[in-house]
């Protein structure tokens, strides 16, 4: 394990037990590291173990086997639970299930208030967090009147107000319209680039994974691929066999490559495609 990694998952297996006592292995021997400032996208179909994995990142679940170490703290160490949760914040899929207060700013203040911070500090954190997601002008509005994309940005602000080192987002755009998706994605990207916050982004939309530093593919509780978007997306046949989408530009380039046209493997950007096509003919 790298000394500097923010999240370190070491040989983690997780077994769910149903009410009837049946056991179901949701994760099996997963190991991975997330470094400070890194943007990691996790893809895989439903039931592949993505969400189970994500819930290990802030001790919502504890491994049945193996260890998860966050910022040097083992998540099994109860005395560090709040440090872990403050370091890694989570945003979930459904925008309607995450907001608890009657105004936007009260909702964002919920976390910092629980930390017992002085009210002036809370005020400052809330203002900064709302500014970071571009929602300052909605501070006194009622959350239920916001659009889906706006609600998700408020949920993200609630996490930001805790000053985390990493945000884990579990399909945050799945229930949003295209405008809302773009709002949320540009917010996440900005927080990653300008604030240096690590991002673990679980998604079904491949266009949201293209710009990641690393893409991880989950299947049947195992991590089956891990690499740069270029490395992962050029494995078109394997991804299709897993019923996952491939970005259209990669799909097109790989299909031409297979017919003997000389293009670099794993093109994920349109500019590169244009350049390569002009050179190859």
């Amino acid at each position, binding site marked *: 394990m790298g000394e500097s990694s923010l999240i370190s998952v070491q040989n983690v297996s997780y077994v769910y037990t149903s009410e009837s006592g049946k056991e179901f292995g949701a994760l099996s021997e997963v190991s991975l590291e997330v470094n400070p400032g890194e943007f990691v996208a996790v893809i895989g*179909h*439903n*039931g592949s173990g993505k969400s189970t994995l994500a819930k290990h990142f802030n001790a919502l679940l504890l491994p049945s086997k193996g260890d998860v170490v966050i910022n040097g703290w083992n998540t099994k160490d109860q005395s560090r639970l709040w440090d872990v949760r403050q370091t890694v914040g989570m945003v979930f*899929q459904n925008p309607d299930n995450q907001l608890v207060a009657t105004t936007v700013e009260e909702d964002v203040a919920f976390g910092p208030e629980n930390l017992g911070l002085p009210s002036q500090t809370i005020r400052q954190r809330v203002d900064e967090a709302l500014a970071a997601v571009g929602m300052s002008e909605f501070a006194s509005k009622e959350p239920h009147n916001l*659009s889906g994309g706006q609600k998700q940005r408020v949920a993200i602000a609630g996490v930001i107000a805790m000053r985390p080192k990493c945000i884990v987002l579990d399909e945050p755009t*799945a*229930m949003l*319209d*295209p*405008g*809302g998706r773009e709002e949320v994605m540009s917010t996440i990207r900005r927080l990653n680039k300008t604030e240096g916050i690590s991002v673990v982004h679980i998604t*079904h939309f491949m*266009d949201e994974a293209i710009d990641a530093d690393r893409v991880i593919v989950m299947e049947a509780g195992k991590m089956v691929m891990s690499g740069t978007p270029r490395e992962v997306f050029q494995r078109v046949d394997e991804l299709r066999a897993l*019923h*996952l*989408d491939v*970005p*259209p*530009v990669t*799909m*097109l380039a790989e*299909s*031409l490559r297979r*017919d003997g*046209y000389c293009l670099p493997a794993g093109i994920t950007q*349109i*500019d590169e*495609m*244009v*350049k390569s*096509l*002009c050179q*190859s*003919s």
Partner: protein
Amino acid sequence: MSIELRGVSYTYGQGTPFAHKALRGIDLTISDGEILGLIGHTGSGKSTLVQHLNGLLKPTEGHVLIDGVDIGAKGTKLRDIRRRVGLVFQYPEHQLFEETVSADVAFGPKNLGLEGEELEQQVKQALQLVHLSYEDLGNRSPFELSGGQKRRVALAGVLAMQPKVLVLDEPSAGLDPRSRDELLGLIRELHEQGITIVFVTHNMSEIAQLAQRLVVMDRGKIVMDGTPREVFSRGDELASIGLGVPEITRLTRQLRRGGIDIPEDILTIEEAKEAIVQWMNQRKGAN
């Protein structure tokens, strides 16, 4: 069976300070056997429009005719209309409530007065249409199923009424790629079996794959109506009302801008590939 909207307008909260006009003078005819996609920005009136197709909403102005019968006229039996035009809402699995899958699917036809053997047959058939096994899943709780399966149970509940027209509001929203592909395949099969399909979506690639006709809404009006190819070749106009084109169409347009001379109305990867190969061969010939 045909659905005809003549000059339909709808205002929410009419006569109150919160009145909001969601539809403005809609004329639309949906013919038997069509598969029609409806797109528009959030708030453009799509969902309001589809709720008129089976009389859940009645127009504040204009007329909706289902097989020539005016749904707003006195004495029209909306029950008959709702049996013939099945409406599948967004996230329909949120409406599952029965203890077993078969009881949930049976709910609609039971209310229509079916019982016994006939009811069971109808439930079996509906589950078969969505590729779920009555024997394996019929007695299970719907809440134990996967997200994709739940959605198919909800769809079966509507199909059990044997509708002639199926209206689906964002049928694939929130599903993973596998469940999405299964569901789209299912919709295509239902269409091939003669059911008229109207579906609302935000996913332009889905439209390109599925729809024969595409209707575009903006601020309560229909602003475009044509084949997907016709509509998606008007990319700039779509962008001006906050809509996109399929990813592959966007890609080919960007390739064109980069100097690669291929048609701009491409809708599938195969078409794009063919066009690029042709372009490269021409270039080689010219050099």
